[in-house]
């Protein structure tokens, strides 16, 4: 790339960095065109057929209120699944996060190994986990809880070890030099620093899991997804609308509570 040179009034010559924006835009554009070919994307279909999207949406209104009685049980199942999975996951994440943090564990090999384990756990799609769990543990909430548990361990674990690694280790060293054992130093020097963020991450993952748990039933892993799948299969969109309304209200409420709690924690 050619650089533009400018001569300032005082005789100094400065070179202006060429912007990389046109290059990036060109690469993006090429890739967009390739991706549109691969996925058969066409704006024309979207324009002529777009109204079809609203057919199902329209059929969901008004939601069938008499279906409400059948929604409660699966809804509570979903909440319980995601709560239990998140809680256990967040607890198990702590030792894994400590073992992955390079400033606590001196052996690069050990921390690297645990980081890799967390990464692989995180990349495996939750829905695949749930499906595998249903094969092993049978259909039901157990499979869903397990899938949520594994996802939470990896998610909270990653964010927590990143948090530990970015800590100021001065406090830890100062406490050790005062004569505290490593464990005590960890308890008083590190735990208070990571606890608020850790709790807020766990709450956040609970929020996300709740939304996710609603899908897991689709592969038979318990909760709202089961009746959602069933009603979609029957094409009874009024009932689907009712399920979605309940889900939206619940998720909204829990988000509100958890946001308030998170703001208090910070």
């Amino acid at each position: 790339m050619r650089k533009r040179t400018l001569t300032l009034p005082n005789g100094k010559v400065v070179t202006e960095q060429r912007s990389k924006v046109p290059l990036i835009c060109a690469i993006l554009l090429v890739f967009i065109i390739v991706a549109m070919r691969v996925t058969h994307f066409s704006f024309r279909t979207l324009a002529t057929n777009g109204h079809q999207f609203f057919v199902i949406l329209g059929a969901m209104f008004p939601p069938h209120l008499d279906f409400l009685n059948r929604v409660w049980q699966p809804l509570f199942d979903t909440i319980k699944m995601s709560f239990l999975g998140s809680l256990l996951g967040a607890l198990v994440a702590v030792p894994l996060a400590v073992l992955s943090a390079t400033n606590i564990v001196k052996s690069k090999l050990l921390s690297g190994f645990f980081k890799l384990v967390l990464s692989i756990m995180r990349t495996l799609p939750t829905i695949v986990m749930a499906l595998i769990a249903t094969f092993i543990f049978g259909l039901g909430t157990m499979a869903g809880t397990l899938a949520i548990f594994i996802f939470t361990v990896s998610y909270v674990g990653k964010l927590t070890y990143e948090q530990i690694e970015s800590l100021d280790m001065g406090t830890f060293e100062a406490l050790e030099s005062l004569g505290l054992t490593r464990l005590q130093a960890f308890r008083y020097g590190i735990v208070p620093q990571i606890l608020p963020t850790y709790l807020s991450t766990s709450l956040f993952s609970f929020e996300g899991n709740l939304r996710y748990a609603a899908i897991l039933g689709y592969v038979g892993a318990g909760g709202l997804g089961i009746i959602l799948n069933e009603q979609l299969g029957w094409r009874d969109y009024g009932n689907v609308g009712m399920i979605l309304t309940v889900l939206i209200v619940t998720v909204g409420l829990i988000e509100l509570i958890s946001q308030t709690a998170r703001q208090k924690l910070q």
Partner: protein
Amino acid sequence: MSEMIELKLNEQPSKKRQYLLLGGIILAMLLWSLTAITFSAPDDGGAKIAGNIIKGILSPDMQLLWNFTSQGVFYLLFETICIAFLGTIFGAILSIPFAFLMAPSVVPKPVYLITRFLVVVIRTIPSLVYGLMFVRVSGPGPFAGVLTMSLTSIGMVSKLYVDVIEDIDRGILEAMDAMGCTTFEKIRFGIIPQLIANFSSITIYRFDMNLRDATILGLVGAGGIGSPLIFAMNSYRWHQVGSILIGLVVLILIVEAISNKLRAKLVNG
């Protein structure tokens, strides 16, 4: 000396009561939630299946993995990348107006409350439901996947965009006003440079997530690597599952590493 330390320590506000309350709530919810889960140890069938799964994943179907036709893992992964990429780009573009309509410093209170509610609704409806709706528009295939991803991306992306918009340094705009800049110049040189780095970083992050979520779309026939994966799992062909999963995990790890580098560079300049 130690008395002074003690004194200083006691001055700190105690969070004990807060944590105690939180602990109590969590314990109560734990007991309540235990009622839903029937803990079932895997029976003989389950243990056998678990063994088969592990064996299958450890000895992947090499023929499928190194197959370069449109049935092979590489093409399917490429298709998945394309779906996630287009979905992210369109989602990010759609998120921009949503984000401005959600920002308290840009629009009056009723407008941003309504938009926020709308975005919560968009975010909460499971992607499967969107998938089914879009299959009606485009027919089954990757096109439906792109449309679904575009819509589901809006929820998170616009929420994160709002934080960036709220953080804009207004002094710069005032200074430009004082210099007599037009509205267009203010947007081009005052607002866009402040937003673009963080916006791109958020978008790249979302691309990561979309790549991971693309498997779900396979359930409703919206293209990508999801449907062959789920088919293989439902018909117990674990060697194929193994080769697809290995491809997927490696791809996601690579993309994540690249995107972390890019985002660090974007945010730190």
